[in-house]
């Protein structure tokens, strides 16, 4: 049986379960009654900066005490079985957090030992994981001298060195150039796709999440705005488009009115048409009938983009 399939069969049906999970910092609600039931997979935790993504992860890992509510990780109660949970969980924090004075492979070996691997196994796993994340001879250099890219790779290596069932990655592409970002995302993608390790990727970049995740959780101001599969979110379109025409704006508006499609002329000169159809074909047919050649048709954003924009707006409104 392939390893990936085996891992998936062994995983509990729900990896994360939370009920009215709340976290308060002073007067600020970082998490406000989060209710989630998350199945294994590649999960994207999306939201603007300060939305509560990192706090959510930290509460699950017990790095932050929960103010109220309850949470289960891998079927175990968070707060009661901390060590046992963390033995099966990997975590890459957003900020640098190496142990000074250690060389790369020594650091990863030490992290493996902290998770309970005996020294020989830990050392071997450390080298395997450093190979996996693409670190070469620099593993024998002191961590303090690493570049941002190397530190991100090292953080990933220490998070998976003990072969966890679920890995939490907090902004793993921060500070990386596009090539570095692509490489890290590729590695993260393979963790679930090929090796069956559930990945929770927290990011404020829609592109990162869109690229590798199957499930999306969008958080804003400590609340879950949406939790669905990427496929569902992308297919949920509201059926609108912006048509860019050089002239005859009024002809287009009149034709739309005849079809009973609400439309409006935007300040930028585009005509926004609510055609209410899944595809753009009816709109294209109408334009063809009018013998109107559009300069551009901008399809409506899908639900993922829309909810993300909504999250951003909520966040901006709060500030």
């Amino acid at each position, binding site marked *: 049986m392939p390893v990936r399939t085996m891992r998936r069969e062994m995983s509990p049906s729900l990896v994360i379960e939370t009920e009215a999970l709340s976290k308060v910092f002073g007067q600020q609600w970082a998490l406000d009654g989060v209710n989630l039931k998350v199945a294994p997979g590649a999960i994207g935790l999306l939201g603007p900066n300060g939305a509560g993504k990192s706090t959510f992860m930290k509460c699950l890992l017990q790095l932050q005490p929960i103010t109220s509510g309850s949470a289960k990780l891998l079927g175990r109660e968070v707060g009661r079985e901390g060590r046992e949970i963390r033995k099966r969980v990997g975590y890459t924090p957003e900020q640098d957090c190496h142990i000074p004075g250690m060389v790369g492979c020594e650091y990863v070996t030490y992290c493996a030992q902290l*998770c309970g691997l005996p020294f020989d196994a830990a050392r071997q796993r450390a080298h395997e994981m450093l*190979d996996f994340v693409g670190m070469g001879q620099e593993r024998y250099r002191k961590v303090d001298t690493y570049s941002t890219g190397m530190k991100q790779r090292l953080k990933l290596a220490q998070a998976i060195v003990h072969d966890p069932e679920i890995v939490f990655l907090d902004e793993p592409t921060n500070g990386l150039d596009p090539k570095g970002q692509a490489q890290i995302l590729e590695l993260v993608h393979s963790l679930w796709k090929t090796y069956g390790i559930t990945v929770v990727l927290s990011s404020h970049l829609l592109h990162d999440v869109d690229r590798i995740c199957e499930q999306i959780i969008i958080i804003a101001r400590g609340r879950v705005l949406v939790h669905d599969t990427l496929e569902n979110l992308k297919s949920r379109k509201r059926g609108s488009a912006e048509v860019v025409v050089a002239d005859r704006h009024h002809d287009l508006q009149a034709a739309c009115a005849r079809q009973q499609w609400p439309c409006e002329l935007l300040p930028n000169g585009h005509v926004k048409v609510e055609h209410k159809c899944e595809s753009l074909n009816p709109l294209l047919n109408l334009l063809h009938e009018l013998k109107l050649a559009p300069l551009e048709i901008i399809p409506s954003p899908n639900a993922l983009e829309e909810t993300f924009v909504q999250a951003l707006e909520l966040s901006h409104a709060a500030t």
Partner: protein
Amino acid sequence: MPLHDISYKHWDGVHLGLWGRRLVIARNGLTACLRNKWLRHVVVLCWGTALIMTAFLFIVGQLLVADSIVVQWIGNFNPGLQSFARFLTTWLEQHPEISVRTTQNVLFYFFCTYLLRASIFVLGMAIPILITRDLASNAIIIYSSKAVSRGDYLLGKFSTAFGLMALTWLGPVCAAWFLGNLLTPDWRFFWHARTALWHVLVFGLSSMTLLSLIALGVSALAIKEKTTTAIWYIWWIVGGVVAPIAIHTQPWLQHLSFNYNLNQIALAVFHPGDDLTAAQDSIPVLGDMLRNIRPQTMTALNTPTFWGAVFWSLLMVGLAALIIRKRVKPE
């Protein structure tokens, strides 16, 4: 292209137990401490001192036994000294438990308090490695995300400090006791010297616990290595200077020095004053010499402020615990 398989591999071996993981933290801390060249030098110096102590005990042992090589050798140079040595031999034969016990108890009291200073010095070098660096580099988050709790982390760090003190203090003292008695001509010395060892263990283990906890507190005070190191050494030195002055002004101020408190505990555990008095009574020659000791010194030796020292030491430990509780957390 890599020559070997670089894909991800799963692992399903047997995990280390909780104590194994705590030991990993302690061992890592000790290894990091011993990377410091100067610290290694002090460790060597401590063990070198233990060897000197062993040699001294060997000579003392020879003096206490009839017709030993040393006594004969002394006789070649100074017949008077040989007579004194023969007197000591008689003393040993008459009161073996007093002669060996008293001698070794006093010697180990001085040796313990001497090596305690070396140990405090070494602990100062290790202060940044205990908690300060982890606070500065956010490594606390890494520890907290692994299969260890905050308690396990602190226990590991405590063991690092404790281990370091065992290496520079209790280890050399116990080794000196063992080797010193092993080299005596009469193996009954082991039995008669048991009180000295007992005192060493009681004082050593309790003081190491207190000092390790206080050191953890100091280490958690700041995130700058120089700051925590400076706090430790300044506290130690200033305390050492203030304690003798405070005795004439505000005696309670003496207890602000952790070193003074430990010395008082040492006096209460070893009772060197009693041994000196016993020696005065049973050896007339020695009695004349010891009568030169100032009365204040004898009073200080005989009346240590044990409970005051314990109270203030526990207060310092409590303060350290508060600092650790407030400072050592993931965020």
